[in-house]
């Protein structure tokens, strides 16, 4: 099921809901996001815990109608100006979550139950303003609980270190809510730094975070998470986050930025010419100790 990024993203219909950026600031599928913009797949609902720039970029491109997330901005610099302007003008709808509530909503869907209970949320305006949350008196203890209903994204897009062509993925480092989102989504695209022979994956089945039965499409895309870091592959491109912050205060500025970084390149191969990979490469390497299976 290995396809090109162009083909994979082309399967996503306008109006879809997409969970992305699930490992927080780690391994964000920017390449997939930029391809969504190039193909003009719009009216999207974006779902995630925090979004470190990717959602802001999609909003700036005008392809977003709703966001269901706990935080949208730029972790290095604070505000995401495209998100802020769109939220303030009402051109996008925002459903406010906490990190836990979005995680529980996806986990409920992944578990196949209509909701999960939590001791968080009550007393906040996140709870008060959202009719989808319910308050419940716990039938066992009488405690007050918040019930978080399931969210089932149409798509989840996840960036991993390596995957088999069948879709089994080795992922390490931060994972955030990757697993709940993959379980919750109707369709899953795995974007891998490296597509490897199935035998490589099977030599370490306990490293598999996503198995083939959950995956629809596999895309090989080295550096596909830049400017976010990928454990074992490249560091975070901090300068990019600061430059973006300065360069996207107005829509016009954003459009100029996007002309260079998104529309000015056909694909990730061309994109890689824009960045100085050597400045991001791993210089101090840590190799995991040996793990054996066998019989």
């Amino acid at each position, binding site marked *: 099921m290995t396809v090109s990024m162009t083909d994979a993203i082309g399967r996503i219909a306008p109006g879809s809901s997409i969970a992305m950026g699930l490992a927080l600031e780690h391994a964000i599928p920017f390449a997939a996001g930029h391809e969504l913009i190039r193909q003009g797949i719009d009216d999207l609902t974006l779902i995630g815990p925090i979004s470190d720039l990717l959602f802001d970029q999609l909003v700036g491109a005008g392809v977003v109608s709703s966001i269901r997330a706990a935080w*949208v901005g730029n972790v290095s610099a604070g505000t995401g100006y495209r998100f802020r302007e769109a939220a303030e003008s009402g051109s996008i709808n925002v459903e406010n979550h906490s*990190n836990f509530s979005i995680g529980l909503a996806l986990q409920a869907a992944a578990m196949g139950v209509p909701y999960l209970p939590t001791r968080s949320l009550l007393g906040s305006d996140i709870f008060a303003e959202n009719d989808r949350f319910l308050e419940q008196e716990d039938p066992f203890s009488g405690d007050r609980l918040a019930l978080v209903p399931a969210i089932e994204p149409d798509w989840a897009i996840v960036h991993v270190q390596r995957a088999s062509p069948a879709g089994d993925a080795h992922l390490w480092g931060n994972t955030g809510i990757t697993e709940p989102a993959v379980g919750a989504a109707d369709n899953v695209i795995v974007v891998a730094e490296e597509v490897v022979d199935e035998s490589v994956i099977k030599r370490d089945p306990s490293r598999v975070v996503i198995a083939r039965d959950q995956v629809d499409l596999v895309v090989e895309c080295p550096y596909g998470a830049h400017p976010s870091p990928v454990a074992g592959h490249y560091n975070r491109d901090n300068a990019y986050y600061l430059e973006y912050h300065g360069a996207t205060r107005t829509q016009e500025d954003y459009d100029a930025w996007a002309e260079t970084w998104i529309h000015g390149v056909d694909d990730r191969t061309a994109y890689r010419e824009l960045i100085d990979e050597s400045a991001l490469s791993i210089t101090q390497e840590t190799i995991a100790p040996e793990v054996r299976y066998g019989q």
Partner: protein
Amino acid sequence: MASKEYTDRELMVSAAAAEIDDGDTAFVGMRLPLIAFQVAVSTHAPDALAVYESGVIRDSPADGFIHTMCDLPNLNNAVSTTGMLDIMSRLQRGDIDVGFLGGAEIDRYGNLNTTLVEAGNREIRLPGSGGACDIACMANRTVLLMAHEPRRFVESAHYVTSPGYARDGTGRDDHPAPGGGPSALVTSKATFGFDNTGELYVRTLHPGVELDAIADDFPWDLQTAADLGGTVGQTPVPTDEELSLIRTFDPDGFWTGE
């Protein structure tokens, strides 16, 4: 004010680090707390553990500057990189001793807003909660950090992202969440505690700051430790060791510079 040998934010980091006890499990988050945990574990709290909502658990400083919890130096030689639900579960079952929170607005009872503020007749959209609401509800205690700016201190938060104490003086008694609520606020001018009713009071003033000069920053009649039978002390300045550590962890002053 005489020229200082440290920045406001370095002092805030030092004060925040002091809020971590040895053996604590701390929920760290972003910005200054990233540095504060590293200072604490390098000085008075060698057995403190940090958890981050990305899933990382660390017992030692990163060997390199980190903009975010997910920067590779924060993963390298971590204790574990489990998932967010696992970290949030620790919080929900009461295993997190202290959590750090920032805020654009704070009210008299420690309720924080990081979602939507009013400026004149404009509403300004901020990034939102992240894990802040969860930490506020469920950590055993929380430590709040913010720049000392009068607009941030409000009678009533425009949007309660992260619950503090009830506004009727009942503290956390009727609050459904298991957490203990805010134990300290650290600004760039003072540190504050919360009394038995959950109301803010001045605990210590940073060197060079006068009580009168900050009382007007609050739209209510600000309490002090003296009102509660104690005394308003002075916030300890960062030690040389702390400053050296802060400047090692943040060599360009990205988070802690002027």
